[in-house]
């Protein structure tokens, strides 16, 4: 097991190196640059040249590349041109928000998706089943930003039930420990702060969680339908096991295998979906910072954030692979 984990972690190195070369080349191939973005619409060529010289942007690309690589090894991704602070610092400040959002989106998707898929399969062919199939098709098809606007218009603007932007009400003076706002509120016993942060998570989490929700419903439904017709289920039924036991031990457990893969992959994808959701809800996470970084050609933030996110993505997939073994002894790694 340990060897498997180490192996997978070592595989990270070539993945990251390759990704980094692509990223570096892509960013430099974009027209314009940080100087133009920072100095605005009336920047003189002299000012741009001076800026590039000061920040080493006039050096040959391979020099810039090696310099960046050398520092990245020590987790120093340089300074953000836009925030005037180290990239790692900005990331650590922003990432908890994105994790919190992703987590709640996943809780929503799993918590609603698995039961929905399961019951759709049990009532195979019923109106409820058809509705869930159509609904999940819609869920996959609807663009995240459109759903986000719609949710906010209805629940925040028209009905006024839920907050529609930000991570916490600006009038709440909360203590920050981990930058996970809900957790911070619980740790400091500032219940109203925790509850308010939770309320702020609901709409973005639904917007972000809808696609994985739809996919989980479909996979769960299909998977349960498959398993129900397996020989071992018939055997279990035939030997007179209680229906509840058959469902719990033979159907659900086996049906959940493909679902867990889906969940893992979707969690990684949510990180990218977060860019759109965070923008629409002005939710202060990594996604919002990435969006600004593109506008400002903030190379340091783009390089650093995308690399760090790639690491997270690979780690999440590793966890999924490990969880496989726990669910299915046949694929338990040696």
């Amino acid at each position: 097991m340990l060897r498997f984990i180490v192996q997978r972690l070592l595989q990270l190195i070539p993945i990251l190196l390759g990704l980094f070369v692509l990223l570096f080349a892509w960013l430099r191939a974009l027209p314009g640059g940080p100087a133009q973005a920072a100095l605005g619409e009336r920047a003189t060529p002299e000012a741009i040249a001076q800026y590039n010289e000061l920040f080493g942007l006039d050096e040959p690309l391979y020099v810039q590349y090696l310099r960046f690589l050398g520092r990245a090894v020590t987790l120093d991704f340089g300074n953000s041109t836009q925030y005037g602070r180290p990239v790692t610092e900005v990331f650590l400040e922003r990432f908890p928000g994105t994790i919190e959002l992703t987590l709640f989106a996943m809780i929503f998707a799993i918590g609603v998706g698995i039961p929905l898929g399961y019951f759709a399969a049990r009532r195979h062919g019923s109106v409820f089943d058809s509705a869930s199939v159509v609904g999940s098709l819609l869920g996959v098809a609807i663009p995240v930003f459109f759903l986000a606007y719609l949710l906010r218009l209805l629940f925040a603007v028209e009905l006024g039930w839920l907050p529609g932007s930000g991570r916490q009400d600006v009038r709440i003076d909360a203590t920050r420990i981990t930058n996970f706002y809900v957790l911070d509120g619980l740790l400091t016993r500032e219940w109203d702060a925790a509850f308010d942060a939770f309320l702020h998570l609901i709409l973005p989490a639904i917007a972000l969680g809808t696609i994985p929700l739809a996919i989980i419903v479909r996979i769960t439904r299909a998977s349960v339908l498959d398993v129900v017709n397996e020989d071992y289920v018939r055997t279990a039924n035939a030997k007179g096991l209680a229906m509840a036991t058959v469902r719990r031990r033979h159907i659900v457990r086996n049906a959940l295998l493909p679902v867990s893969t889906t969940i893992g992959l979707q969690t990684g994808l949510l990180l990218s979906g977060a860019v759109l959701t965070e923008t629409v809800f002005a939710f202060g996470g990594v996604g919002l910072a990435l969006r600004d970084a593109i506008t400002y050609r903030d190379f340091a933030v783009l390089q650093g954030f995308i690399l760090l996110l790639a690491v997270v993505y690979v780690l999440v997939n590793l966890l999924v692979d490990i969880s496989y073994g726990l669910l299915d002894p046949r694929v338990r790694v040696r």
Partner: protein
Amino acid sequence: MTRRHTRAVAASASALIAVTLSACASSDRDDSGGGDAAEGQSGGTLVFGAAGDPAMFDPAFASDGETFRVARQIHEGLLTNEPGTTELVPALAEDWEVSEDGLEYTFNLREDVQFHDGTAFDAEAVCFNFDRWHNFTGLAQSPSASYYYQAVFGGFADSDNPGIYEGCEATDENTAVITFNQVTSKIPAALSLPAFSIQSPTALQEYDADNLSGSEDAITYTEYALEHPTGTGPFKFDSWDRGNGEVTIVRNEDYWGEPALLDEIIFRTIPDGNTRRQELQAGTIDGYDFVSPADYDTLEGEGAQVLVRDPFNILYLGINGGNVPGTSANPALQDIRVRQALAHAIDRETIVNSLLPEGAEVATNFMPPTVDGWADDVQTYEYDPERARQLLEEAGALGTTLRFYYPTDVSRPYLPDPAAMYQVISEDLQEAGFTIEPTALQWNPDYLQAVQSGQADIHLLGWTGDYNDAYNFIGTFFAEDQNNQASAEFGAFSAPEIFEALAEADAAPDPADRTELYQEANRLIKEFLPAVPISHSPPALVVAENVQGLEPSPLTAEDFSSVYLED
């Protein structure tokens, strides 16, 4: 002989303007003005939706609007603008005198002013700040840091060209004499910029304000700029929650003037324009900037107040006659008749009426009429497609192909809808006998870089002024560079008479002479026609029904100290 600007004169002049303005304004507020009506209404928190995060709070290192918006509440300079106008009035200076040669400015300072940290504001503090800017070294000299100091003063103590600043002397506790080695029309108007705010020498030193460190690729701002900005303004810096994008400032109880009415203001970053609008509609913010003209009616219908600023910008159609090496602009544009044909072909009246928000005006000069030096007798080139076609025929350029560049993904105050603007102008030009080949590029940095390096034949661009100075408009566009040419954006044309007129006006010590010289420069520019001025259009901000006392400023220099919340 010295000119003496007294507060009374300035105040009465600006009062006149204020009356005129409020007569024009559409809002039907019934309070008769400012503080009195607000008695007993003070207190409360205002939440304002900002479009982006501020960079930090040391305005000497800032040049962006979101940083300045906050800085303007915390910091003050020697001079400011009368609320709602571009009129220059004293702030921390009580009045000022200029020597006859225009090189020595004597500022008589306000007494009994304290910085937020208790340090006394005096002539020493003023000189400390001026010397501080002049002695920036290393990364602090980066144009992305001290952009405005370089733009106005021209250089630093240790640069090859040390610029126009000679020195500052505190002749007594409340008199600061600042000397320059060259006259420029930027002074004194530019001193109203937040970048030239006077900050507490104690705090600047204690928190190491000048020590901009950082690796090769970017600046790291100082502790002073991020956590301890210390000015004299009506609000004090309280906190910056960077994760949640919130800046909180609180009332300065010891303010030297009329204290602010609000207890605190929170500036909340909401990058998306639709989100800002919906948040105002949901009541979670009390106002925001960069209102889309398309939303004016909806917002007003719901009771919000759209506060339209006086236009202080210019949209023009840039022309590139093609002298820039490495580019291939259409040489037909070097013919004045072809440029005149462009000007005659565009129906600017229709553009202003159909594409721009209410209050927009057709531009005749390359600067708005509120700037000193605007001339009412420049050549105007009426809309006349027949005449345009005739000119093209005479020049043998009928049907000539122009590559027309316009930006996408952007809405500028002077150009709310670039694609629509392109569409209308392009049709006008085709009707007059031009062939148009469009290129649409993403605004920043693709578009800006393309047009500024001379890739386009014609393009749409504009400018919002920083302060009331003609040079800030026409000098920015048409002054010569080191090679005695205009910028690549305008095809690096060579027009010595324009360059000389601009330089002469900039160096004229007497304001009256200067105004006339700028008027002459405007006439010359319109004759040469290096571009076609199109329009001035008013940007707006919006506040909720119960927010009173916010005076929209043409310079986007809104002062929040007079704002109060009605019950």
